[in-house]
């Protein structure tokens, strides 16, 4: 998700950067020290959070952190999940974002699951964008930041609903197939994400392979390029592909990898492709009787190329680093079923 929003934010920041460059070195040094200190604080907070979820009870689902499987709660089953996604490092400077999601899932039927999410985020960015300009990340695209500002913000980003309907089960039909829909509404933002989820198991169901195709059109109300006080609704479509493989190597524990290709179009008709990024990294999962956790670390692969709407300066060493693409991302999901 980014598109015209990135175009706007990046160009605007670059423009301001050229106008304001040459500001006091002392203040910039102070800002860098501040950024480093905040980053360390963030790391400590993240580690503390892992410890907290780790000390919960004993075991269950979400075998991958980014890719979905067709495994659902049974009818009447309930689960609470907490997600933390850490996005780290752009073109240069400093950039960190922590996205939190708190979810409640409920099994409406044996093959239909519903969920509600609360979404919130915190970010800090400094000289992270094209041409060294400070650029707010996508979830803060409606915020203003000067090219040399230290941007630090937090917000409640919105509420999401989710429905997953399983058509085929990998355990009884040979292959799993499910349809997924997730509307999200927040301030200056609306998105409708849909997925087709496929799952195939091998080796007595110890090896799980899942594939996701995602289609997610969205609207964002962001400041206009020419007159920032005036906001315009802009459209974008995300088309994502996900592949994940995991093997249960001992009881309760499985490990594997996740691969993502995320594509963004500045339109609803698949024209104006702006970004296409590739991510790959390891995943580990623990599942017990009521408690589970899953963690995946993804690094962007240097396979990105320029497209028709790619923002100048956002592609560095074949990495696309526009608003919601970064060099590294890490997600932890922890859940409790009851």
């Amino acid at each position, binding site marked *: 998700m980014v598109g015209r929003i990135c175009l706007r934010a990046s160009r605007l920041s670059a423009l301001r950067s050229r106008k304001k460059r040459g500001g006091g070195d002392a203040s910039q040094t102070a800002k860098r020290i501040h950024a480093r200190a905040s980053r360390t604080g963030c790391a400590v907070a993240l580690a503390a959070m*892992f410890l907290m979820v780790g000390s919960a009870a*004993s075991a269950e689902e979400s075998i991958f952190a980014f890719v979905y499987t067709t495994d659902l709660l049974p*009818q009447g089953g309930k689960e609470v999940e907490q997600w933390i996604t850490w996005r780290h490092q752009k073109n240069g400077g400093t950039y960190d974002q922590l996205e939190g999601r708190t979810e409640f899932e409920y099994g409406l039927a*044996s093959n239909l699951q519903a969920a509600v999410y609360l979404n919130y985020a915190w970010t800090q960015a400094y000289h992270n964008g094209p041409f060294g300009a400070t650029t707010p990340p996508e979830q803060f695209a409606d915020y203003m930041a000067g090219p040399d500002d230290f941007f630090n913000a937090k917000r409640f980003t919105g509420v999401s609903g989710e429905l997953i309907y399983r058509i085929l089960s990998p355990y*009884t039909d040979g292959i799993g197939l499910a349809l997924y829909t997730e509307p999200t509404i927040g301030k200056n933002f609306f998105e409708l994400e849909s997925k087709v989820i496929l799952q195939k198991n091998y080796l007595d169901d110890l090896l799980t392979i899942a594939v996701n195709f995602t289609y997610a059109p969205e609207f964002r109300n962001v400041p206009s390029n020419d007159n920032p006080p005036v906001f315009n609704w802009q459209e974008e479509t995300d088309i994502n592909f996900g592949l994940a493989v995991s093997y249960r190597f001992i009881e309760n524990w499985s490990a594997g990898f996740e691969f993502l290709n995320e594509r963004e179009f500045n339109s609803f008709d698949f024209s104006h492709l702006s970004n296409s990024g590739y991510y790959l990294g390891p995943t580990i999962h623990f599942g*017990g*009787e009521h408690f589970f956790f899953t963690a995946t670390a993804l690094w962007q692969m240097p396979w990105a190329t320029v497209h028709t709407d790619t923002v100048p300066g956002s592609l560095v060493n074949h990495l696309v680093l526009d608003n919601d693409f970064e060099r590294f991302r890490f997600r932890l999901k922890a859940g409790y079923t009851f």
Partner: protein
Amino acid sequence: MKASHWVWLPVAVISTSAYATTYFTVEQAQRAIFPGASFTSMGQPNTWRTSNGGYFVVERVVGKHEYITVAIGINPNGTVKQIEIMDYRESYGYEVRDPSWRAQFVGKSASSPLQLGADIKNISGATLSSKHITDGVKRVLQNLRAKG
């Protein structure tokens, strides 16, 4: 981020590892399925010949998170007398322990379909466990038939 921040994560999680829920020991399962019988080991792990000519087999099958241990009693004519779930530690699907679900296996032989969704009912939320218990019973019956 310093490595010291991470080292406590596996420690914290391992400390929460699931505990074993054992409903039957081998001896208890033998007495439940073949009351009054005596058991002779057949020289292979987890398989016993009973004094009335039947068989008692302990089979371990894959569950969602952990292995499930199943005791299978087989009549002298090769049909299932009774099965008991010895260990089960999953989030859902404790119905596999219900007598009505286990009763579906009684009378099945190596020639029976023993297929989840066909002659054995699925349990919502425990499809994987139900399937592997069913497959496990079938595997044991077929192995015994192959050995004559």
